[in-house]
């Protein structure tokens, strides 16, 4: 097997090991949030599409890094956007947490939430009407932009591959493949975590649901603070 092919396996393996450590810590609260909001619905496909969306974003970022052949140029462009995505994800997680504790009349997004007016209410009603697991693909794509150390490391490799490529197009293809391999590698850990957090006894016990709400509120605040200070 050539060195060019083996780098994809290296990053597939890296994604797999990083998934069980770093990603469970970073994306775990998001997986937990999705699971608790999907109370009466099968959760496998929504979680799968969330993860595929995340991987698609990594592949697009990898293509950009490979095309440019520079990590620092890409990172300087992304930096400002990523901090606000992290802060916004924190805000959404905190709002959902408040809804779950009953302190904010949001209810469960995919069940009988009280009707709300305004932009937030309209967005939540749209979520309630959404029956397709495909909805979680763009959610995953957006959340794939949350800043993450191992993602940056994989992007460094994508940019290096772009520098060594014969053309920008080949660099983009190679960078994209590295990041896709990395993203696919992270999926098993988060799918296993989703299986755990989707346990029906966990989702159907009111006190666990409220405790989960408090955990989400704390996590959301943590994400917001980290995002704003990033």
């Amino acid at each position, binding site marked *: 097997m050539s060195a060019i092919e083996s780098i994809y396996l290296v990053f597939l393996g890296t994604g797999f090991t990083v998934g069980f450590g770093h990603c469970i810590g970073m994306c775990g609260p998001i997986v937990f949030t999705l699971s608790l909001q999907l109370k009466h619905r099968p959760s496998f496909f929504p979680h799968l599409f969330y993860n595929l969306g995340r991987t698609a974003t990594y592949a697009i970022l990898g293509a950009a890094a490979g095309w440019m052949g520079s990590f620092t140029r890409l990172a300087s462009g992304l930096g400002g956007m990523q901090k606000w995505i992290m802060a916004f994800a924190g805000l959404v997680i905190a709002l959902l947490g408040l809804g779950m504790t009953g302190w904010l009349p949001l209810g469960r997004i995919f069940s009988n939430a009280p009707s709300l007016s305004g932009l937030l209410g309209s967005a939540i009603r749209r979520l309630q009407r959404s029956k397709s697991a495909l909805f979680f693909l763009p959610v995953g794509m957006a959340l794939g932009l949350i800043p993450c150390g191992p993602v940056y490391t994989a992007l460094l490799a994508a940019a290096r591959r772009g520098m060594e490529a014969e053309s920008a197009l080949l660099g983009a293809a190679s960078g994209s493949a590295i990041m896709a391999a*990395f993203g696919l590698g992270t999926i098993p850990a988060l799918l296993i975590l989703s299986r755990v957090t989707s346990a029906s006894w966990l989702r159907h016990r009111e006190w666990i649901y409220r405790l989960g709400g408090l955990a989400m509120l704390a996590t959301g605040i943590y994400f917001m603070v980290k995002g704003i200070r990033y």
Partner: protein
Amino acid sequence: MPACPKTHGILFRAVLFALVGLFSLGGAIAQASDPEPNCAIQEGACTQSAGNRTVTLNILPKPVRAMQELTFRVEVGGEPPSAPPVIDLDMPAMEMGPNQVRLRPVNATVFEGTGVIVRCPSGKRLWSATVILSETTKAKFLFRVRY
């Protein structure tokens, strides 16, 4: 006696819970017990011994910040290495993926290369640079970067 599917389901989830808990707890404990830096890289170059050689590492420009292109300069004291060393960049107790700096010889004992130390959103700043002279001869530098 036939196995009960419900019991299997509960056991399966209990095992998954335990595994996820162990991984998370292991990660948290590892992060809580970060080692102390052995190199004040923001002040200047650092020297460590590796076998019967000395390895001096400097990173420029100062201050050493994450997410910018950095020049890594390694000087090997004693017998010159047979091949240019490689630097492995990592965070202690945090899997960050493979990030290696390839060095080119400036002369027989001095080597240089460029690389990037990525930023960890956890806010942790302790990084390690392991200068690998051979499979058994390595020097590990622990230092703090700035964000």
